């Protein structure tokens, strides 16, 4: 019987480790969602890509929900995401706002000319300063902002058809309904 003690001790240990795995799946300490979720979008004032003399601000975009899509002509994965966005834009139910990130305006225009332009509004952040407020660390990233200017959903990396169907569309459907 005493020879079974190590085995029993081990079973207890294994139970504890199993608990550890279960606990950590339920209580993920590392994957912190963006602190901006359910917070007002940061203030910004950016020139429009095609009319640099005009600017867009957080206030000027209030009133209707929109999807802010961070992209750049130098970003390879943006080229992967682009056709998906382009196909989805008309049926998305929210406006698609382009956020051209750390890009030369001429490069961006050339890129949009070849790949197509699904955006209803295009802002240019050539220095990348404003992107810091959004916590952007690589393009592409997308932020869903509601009519009150509150960020409701964020996705890092390209929006694939799976992300579109499983995450973005439910997030758009969950937006508070506004009297239009």
């Amino acid at each position, binding site marked *: 019987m005493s020879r*079974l003690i190590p085995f029993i001790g081990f079973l207890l240990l294994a139970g504890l*480790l*199993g608990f550890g*795995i279960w606990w*950590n799946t339920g209580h993920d300490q*590392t994957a912190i969602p963006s602190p901006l979720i359910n917070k007002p979008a940061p203030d910004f004032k950016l020139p429009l890509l095609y009319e640099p003399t005009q600017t867009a601000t957080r206030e000027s975009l209030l009133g209707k929900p929109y999807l802010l899509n961070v992209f750049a002509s130098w970003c390879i994965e943006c080229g992967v995401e682009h056709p998906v966005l382009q196909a989805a834009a008309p049926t998305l139910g929210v406006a698609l706002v382009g956020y051209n990130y750390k890009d030369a305006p001429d490069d961006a225009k050339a890129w949009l000319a070849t790949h197509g332009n699904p955006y209803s509004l295009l802002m240019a952040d050539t220095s990348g300063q404003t992107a810091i407020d959004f916590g952007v660390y690589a393009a592409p990233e997308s932020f869903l902002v509601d009519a009150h200017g509150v960020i409701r959903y964020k996705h890092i990396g390209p929006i694939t058809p799976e992300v579109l169907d499983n995450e973005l569309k439910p997030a758009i459907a969950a937006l508070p309904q506004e009297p239009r």
Partner: protein
Amino acid sequence: MTPELGQIALILALLLALAQSILPIVGAWKNNGAMMAVARPAAFGQGFFVVMAFVLLVWAFLHFDFSVQYVADNSNLALPWYYRITAVWGAHEGSMLLWIFILNVWTLALAFFSRQLPEAFAARVLGVLGIISVGFLAFILFTSDPFGRLIPMPPDGGDLNPVLQDPGMTFHPPVIYMGYVGFSVAFAFSIAALLGGELEQAWVRWARPWTNIAWAFLTCGIVAGSWWAYAELGWGGWWFWDPVENASFMPWLVGTALIHAQAVTEKRGSLRAWTILLSIFAFSLSLLGTFLVRSGVLTSVHSFASDPRRGLFILCFLIFVVGGSLLLYALRAPKVAGGKPFAVVSRESAILVGNLMFTVAAAMVLLGTLFPLIGDALNLGKISVGPPYFGLLFPLLMLPIVLLLPFGPYLRWGKGEPQILKRVMLRALLAAMACAIVAAFFVDGKLKAIAGVAAAAWVAVGVLLYIVKRWREMPRGRRYPAEMAGMLFAHAGVAIFLIGVLLSESLSATSDVRMAPGETKTIGGYDFRFDGVRETQGPNWRADQGTVTVTRNGKPVAVMQPQKRTYTREQIQTESAIDPGVTRDLYVALGEPMDKQHIDGAWALRLYYKPFIRWLWFGGLMMMLGGFVSACDRRFRVRRTAIVDVAEPMHASVLAENRT
């Protein structure tokens, strides 16, 4: 194409590992020679494909194949070639590939050097190693594929974690894995003995050199890891009781107990069941360490990617391997147990006491490591235990071992002679006291430092006296057989280690200071003059490099250049500057500039004076050397016929004893 080849190689290796694990064990059970004969070719085949997969991943790194996700994540165009090779084990997937690669190195060595073992026994040993291989190959293929493609392929990759861009890191992981994984061989020997119900203890003699080599590698790996933490992390410490460090330290503690228990079992036949249990524990703790590091159940400074799926897989494998072997032990150990009785004063008793201390220490470390988890489980909130817990209990548990150490070689097997022990004790005690009194004048009454000097003298005098005794009493050529020489090296290493730890812990001086260029600060009798910071450039980093001129009584000692590097991906890494010395290390780490716009102004600096710290690594290396030297003993290399000759009479006497 090469990544797919790598993947195919891993799949083929898995299939061969399955053959290597099932057929020989069944063959040994059914006494089927043809099935047993599969073991070696399967092991060679598996080894071939695993080496191929490993080389293909190295190749992908050397050729910047960023279409491989793992390569793209962990290297870039600016990374020098040598760090592109070490990047292979710079993250989870490749590090598991290194694990399996090293398991195969051990398996190949065993397949090669086991020809003189009885066929059934060798087949079982290789079979058990095959089972472990299956587990890890399946783990890699199903949860951590290093060859996964990344589409679209990026023009440049990420970066190897800058903490790992250090010469110490190039060999720390392979060496520590050699030790970790090497315990699988001792484990396989024990399981094979249990499966075969080996009545004689000859298998322990075959297992001993393997265990010693694995232990020596693990010692070296821990020393290298500790050195790397000291030089690279910029905290000036050498051990942090971090979960990942503990993960490598627990197998070391149990492994140390194991190599001593094996000596008892081999020579006297006693403690057989205990030796088997320790072999199982040592390898189980290696597996547990892998689990703790890979599952992300515990948070640690070693931030490895964590994934609950991986944790679950390893846990299942752990339950199968460890649970299975402990169950097997419960069922079969009574059959293989036995041995000669021994008196209270005997070498067996001394080793047993040491064994208990090492095992309890390992259990203590395990408890401390898992404490946060236990806290969660019992709903006690977020708790963790740190250096105060370990720092109090560990020295207490090691104290009896240090006190017993000088007597070990003098004690006879079976029954020791108290008179000789008294003489040794008297001399060692006198030496320890004399050294302590002399030391007391130099360390201005610091108790810890005096205790360190006394303990080191106590151990060293014991070792020296025994060296002299052998020199006097034995004829030339038979004075120091390798096994004994190894023991003496390792025990002398303990004395050196004690000096290093206790003196550096008690006499270190640290100072966090703000220094303007030209300013001077004195610690430990050394004057550190800060000469300002300028920018410098490396292959894949740029750095702010400070210059600190150290003088003592006006005489120049060293010019130290600590850096604060910024790597390709804007990761910041401190490179501390160390001026090494036999009696002290000087250590400077660069903090932050007082004014970010003007790096040529004042900076925050951290200055250390660390006396005798180098001795603790040197002591560790002496222990490692002892392990390797012991493993070379001629007795372990006897041919098959000789084994039978030597083992038979012993075997007969053991049986006779069992009957009475």
